[in-house]
């Protein structure tokens, strides 16, 4: 068994607001075929499979029942994580490092279009005794958090508007994206409030899609047909599941996760060493909250200045969400993290087309599971085989 793990293949469908012609099984089969082709493997060679899914997103209980066939996983080790795809990547890495598997596949998808009552679904995730009886639209919880975040950090509404403009414009260069649009911050600032200070244009729209990622141990990675994307660091963490006990200003789950990842990757100065950041932007302000939690800016003032100087744009010093993020690509529920991994892998391989950044050696992806959670994960990928195993 080996300590070094790499991604040797990715497969994904384009993200779309709806996919009426394909069942979720058929969507998964498409992404899996592409991933195995990219990795140059047959499913019979795969040792273990991980699916990231929530029953109630699918409308089916014990959803892992319905995953093996279309991934080639019949009568193989397979399990579900009710987590984002990045947790799945961490899971696969741990399996390989434990010696129990050499080739692991991680899958996540979204059929958000099939959920006809999305707000009621999120409401169903709230504490039934303390929170649900209030009957709030769940976006209000993001509004609450955004308000105190702006208040404490000094970040302003126009910074959030810049995030939307940047990400949706970046999406114009991403063939996978569902919501590309050349817009200006002014458009955002005139969009209606959903829950003050959160505006409608600042909320990512849900989409359908499926992504499959193939991870291998060092031996197999070195023989792979594509340039391997080495997993240099992973981390995942939760803050409190209870609304009343959590930190509303700092995304501590991201901080705890990234500290583990930086340590494993031996990264001292992330801003200098990491070329691109794919960070959760389910709500525009979250991108900013996460950038601070990732230790990239010491406070709101520094971040604000950086945004005003255009540093987080695709052509800036520190590109954030070159893929278009969730605002530009759409939000494929628990597959969100995997689509960021796809972006990193393409960039590391030099296959990112019009979005390609120069000199990409390290990239970071970070996920958040959305309202009402404080759950997130971080994965750092690199072109060089790590010296210290991740």
């Amino acid at each position: 068994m080996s300590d070094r793990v790499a991604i040797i293949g990715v497969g994904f469908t384009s993200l779309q607001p709806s996919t009426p012609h394909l069942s979720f099984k058929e969507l998964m089969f498409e992404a899996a075929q592409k991933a195995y082709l990219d990795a140059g493997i047959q499913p019979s060679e795969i040792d273990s499979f991980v699916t990231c899914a929530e029953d109630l997103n699918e409308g089916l209980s014990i959803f892992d029942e319905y995953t093996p066939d279309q991934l080639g996983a019949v009568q193989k080790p397979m399990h579900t994580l009710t987590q984002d795809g990045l947790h799945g990547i961490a899971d696969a890495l741990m399996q390989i490092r434990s010696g129990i598997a050499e080739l692991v596949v991680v899958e996540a998808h979204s059929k958000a279009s099939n959920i006809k009552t999305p707000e009621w679904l999120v409401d169903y995730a709230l504490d039934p005794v303390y929170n649900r009886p209030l009957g709030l639209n769940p976006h209000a919880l993001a509004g609450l958090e955004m308000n105190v975040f702006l208040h404490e950090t000094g970040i302003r509404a126009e910074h959030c508007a810049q995030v939307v403009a940047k990400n949706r414009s970046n999406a114009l260069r991403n063939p996978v994206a569902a919501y590309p649009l050349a817009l200006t911050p002014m458009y955002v600032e005139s969009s209606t409030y959903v829950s003050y200070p959160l505006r409608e244009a600042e909320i990512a729209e849900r989409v359908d899609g499926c992504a499959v990622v193939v991870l291998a141990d060092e031996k197999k990675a070195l023989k792979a047909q594509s340039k391997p994307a080495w997993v240099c660091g992973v981390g995942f963490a939760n803050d409190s599941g209870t609304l009343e006990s959590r930190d509303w200003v700092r995304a501590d789950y991201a901080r705890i996760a990234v500290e583990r990842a930086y340590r494993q990757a031996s990264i001292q100065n992330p801003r200098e060493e990491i070329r691109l950041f794919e960070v959760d932007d389910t709500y525009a302000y979250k991108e900013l909250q996460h950038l601070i939690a990732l230790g990239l800016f010491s406070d709101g003032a520094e971040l604000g200045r950086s945004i005003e100087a255009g540093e987080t744009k695709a052509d800036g010093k520190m590109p954030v969400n070159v893929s278009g993020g969730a605002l530009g690509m759409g939000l494929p529920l628990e597959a969100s993290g995997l689509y960021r991994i796809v972006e990193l892998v393409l960039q590391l391989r030099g296959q990112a087309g019009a979005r390609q950044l120069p000199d990409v050696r390290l990239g970071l992806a970070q996920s958040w599971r959305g309202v009402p959670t404080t759950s997130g994960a971080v994965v750092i990928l690199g072109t060089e085989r790590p010296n210290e195993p991740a």
Partner: protein
Amino acid sequence: MKSEPEPNLVRGTPLHEKPLRQGKTFTITYTPKLRYEWDMGQAIGRYLAELKEGRLIARACRKCERVMIPPRMFCERCFRPTDEWVYLKDTGKIFTFSLCYVSWNVKRLKQPEVPAVIEIDGASPGMGILHVVKRIAPKKVRIGMAVQAVWKPKPERIGSVTDIAYWEPIKK
């Protein structure tokens, strides 16, 4: 080092029906408002459309030579797309069955339902579907019994597995 849970260390407060019904415990009730509209996709979409026409359809994989029902666009063993549509008969054999005296929402039934896995004629051996059997004394049902689908009248068929109302023994 303590390990075995001595009786007083295994905690938990059992609640009994009576105090609950008498309102001696606070409860909160919530009815989830969850609605889904699932995309049928290629395979199941056709399956349901054929059911509406009074036919059973399967998919075949030329590589492993299986004819599969319920149909699927991929063969899960060969991991390749399946190759063609195959119409099946609407007769079959009971692979296994049960006599169920409890409904799905836990109501006691006087007359049992007879769920069964029915191997469909024309599909590969062992290719069964779940359905219900009627028009036979429950005690007479046997594994291996030959059965026939009884379809709802065409105007009542909507493109659902219930377009077959039930299966009954083939009269010799």
